[in-house]
């Protein structure tokens, strides 16, 4: 459902009846009556601390109906034909459609702020919800991205590729450029609905869109771990699911990110809570073995994507014992950049490019896990900081290869 004209007459009447509101909070993840009742209480509590009691609407999937009178006063309920997203992010088009529908509703209601809670809203504290709304309403921020508690082995694709790449290319040091919970301003919602951005509204594109459009970006500490995702069938599917749209976005924003020179910290709202200590040994030998298998079999494929110097480094890596297995940050950054370029140049089928990257990503996971398995939370954060800096340092290499892909690259 991406067109409000296709709505039922009752729903159109309801939208007209609601008139103009200030805040739209969408909870596509709510599926039951109990969850909706709990969510209503949390949202009402969160909005009490924002401005002078703004008029707000809670948009929820029309499958989950609340009791009559569960919302009153400043918070109205709007059952809406949103594609239910039980876990975030749902692969494929349904997620994009869900976001677009919410944006259309927010636009129609003339809301100043639109908050989408894609994770389970019953786990978020009212204060956390408030941190997504308040910067937009009171400080004119256009996009508020989430900050989750980062357990060391959570959201590894984001840590390995998305966050450092986003930092290096768009100059914004966001901890989770892709997440489940966002706050948007009316301006950014309008931009997402413009015909030029009709490609869809994928969360992985919000931060880059906002950065390239000159919008004001912040991030909010939500105090919860990274939401549980729908597990893809295997790692290569996860790589394709996240990195495909990311590399596609690089192509679209090439004119923008080539002008960005250095990264800047982004205002963060709320204090970071302590990450619970994790115990337990981690066996990385399977990951290393998978990488070695890839090296033995995929040299021809990697040879099309990677320069000879990188292949030599990879060969050296295969000979290391698990205890000393380390993939250097600058090497990893160049590998990611080379694969992004191969994706753009279509040196082979794009599915094959992403598939061939999977054993290398496994090598990074093994190296990272071996490094941080006994590290304290602060040391893990420093590890991510070093990786982000390495991506920034290697950016000239990427820009040069992007502009002159045929130039000799030893």
């Amino acid at each position, binding site marked *: 459902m991406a067109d409000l004209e296709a709505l039922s007459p009752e729903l159109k009447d309801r939208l007209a009846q609601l008139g103009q509101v200030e805040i739209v909070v969408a909870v596509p993840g709510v599926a039951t009556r109990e969850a909706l009742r709990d969510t209503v209480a949390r949202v009402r509590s969160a909005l009490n601390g924002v401005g002078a009691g703004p008029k707000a609407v809670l948009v929820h999937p029309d499958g989950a109906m609340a009791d009559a009178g569960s919302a009153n006063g400043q918070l109205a309920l709007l059952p809406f034909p949103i594609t239910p997203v039980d876990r975030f*992010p749902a692969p494929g088009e349904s997620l994009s459609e869900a976001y677009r529908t919410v944006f259309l509703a927010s636009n129609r209601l003339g809301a100043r702020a639109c908050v989408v809670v894609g994770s389970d809203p019953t786990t978020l504290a009212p204060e956390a919800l408030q941190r997504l709304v308040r910067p937009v309403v009171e400080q004119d921020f256009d996009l508020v991205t989430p900050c989750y508690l980062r357990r060391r*082995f*959570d*959201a*590894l*694709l*984001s840590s390995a590729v998305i966050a450092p790449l986003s930092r290096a290319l768009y100059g914004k040091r966001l901890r989770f450029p892709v997440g489940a919970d966002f706050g948007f301003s009316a301006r950014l919602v309008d931009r997402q609905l413009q015909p030029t951005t009709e490609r869809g509204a994928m969360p992985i594109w919000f931060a880059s869109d906002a950065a390239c459009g000159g919008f004001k970006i912040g991030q909010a500490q939500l105090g919860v771990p*990274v939401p549980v*995702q729908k*597990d*893809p069938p*295997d*790692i*290569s599917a*996860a*790589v394709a*699911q*996240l990195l495909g749209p990311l590399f596609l976005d690089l192509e679209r924003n090439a004119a923008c990110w080539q002008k960005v020179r250095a990264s800047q910290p982004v205002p963060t709202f709320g204090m970071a809570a302590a990450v619970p200590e994790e115990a*337990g040994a*981690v*066996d990385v030998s*399977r*990951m290393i*073995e*998978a990488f070695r*298998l*890839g090296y*033995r*079999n*995929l040299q021809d*494929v990697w040879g099309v994507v990677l320069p000879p110097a990188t292949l030599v480094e990879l060969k050296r890596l295969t000979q290391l014992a698990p205890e000393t297995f380390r993939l250097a940050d600058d090497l990893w950054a160049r590998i990611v950049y080379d694969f992004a370029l191969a994706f753009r*140049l*279509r*040196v*082979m*089928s794009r*599915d*094959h490019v992403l*598939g*061939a990257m*999977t*054993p290398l990503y496994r090598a990074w*996971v093994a190296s990272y*896990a071996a490094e941080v398995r006994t590290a304290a939370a602060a040391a893990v954060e420093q590890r991510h900081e070093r990786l982000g800096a390495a991506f920034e340092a290697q950016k000239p290499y990427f820009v040069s290869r992007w502009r002159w892909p045929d130039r000799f690259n030893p």
Partner: protein
Amino acid sequence: MWEQAQQALNQSSDRVVAGLANLLPGLVALVVALALSSVAAWVLAFLLRRFLRGIRFDERLEGWGLSGLADWSPNKSPSILVTRTVSWLVVLIGFLIGIAAFNASITSEIAMRLFRYLPNVVAAVTLFLLGNVFARFLARGVLISAVNHNLQYARLLSLGVKWLVLVLAAAMALEHLGIGGRIVELAFGILFGGIVLALALAVGLGSKDLVSRSLERQADKVTAPEEAPEPFRHI
């Protein structure tokens, strides 16, 4: 006696000269046809090359997953391959026209037969080239997928798939050319069956331990200690 020999020699010379005189227009026509067709081929190749470069034919082919064609092309450029194929076809047509100009019934017959056979040759070559490209594409896909599923015999599997498709393409091409008839079908059946059998044996032997362990677990209802799940979450 000497007069008779001289007469015979004169007659023979006359016949050779007459024969040569009869042949000469045909030869000239052949040379002219070859020259004209060469010029036409050069012009056509020039225009076609510019057109293909304009539409970025090589990049488009890569985008369609046909990058394997570049390996078979001169200078790794499918545009040059297409251009040269077309120009040589034009030269060949000029040659056939030149042969037909001899006005001899046999040469005309050969020319007509060649003309009739030409579509089969083009179809067979196209089939074989496409089969080759498809085989490489499929082999690479299988190889990457098998590696990502940690299959130790990934390369063997990929090679098997590649040769299956190649053998199929070659058999289809030969059938189009009308070469071999039933022998090709038989050979194809034997070869295809052989490859499938070899693959089945390879996979079977490679995973016999896995199958036997699985059967033992089923039979004894004993739950063997599972490998600990990895603590990594990727998304």
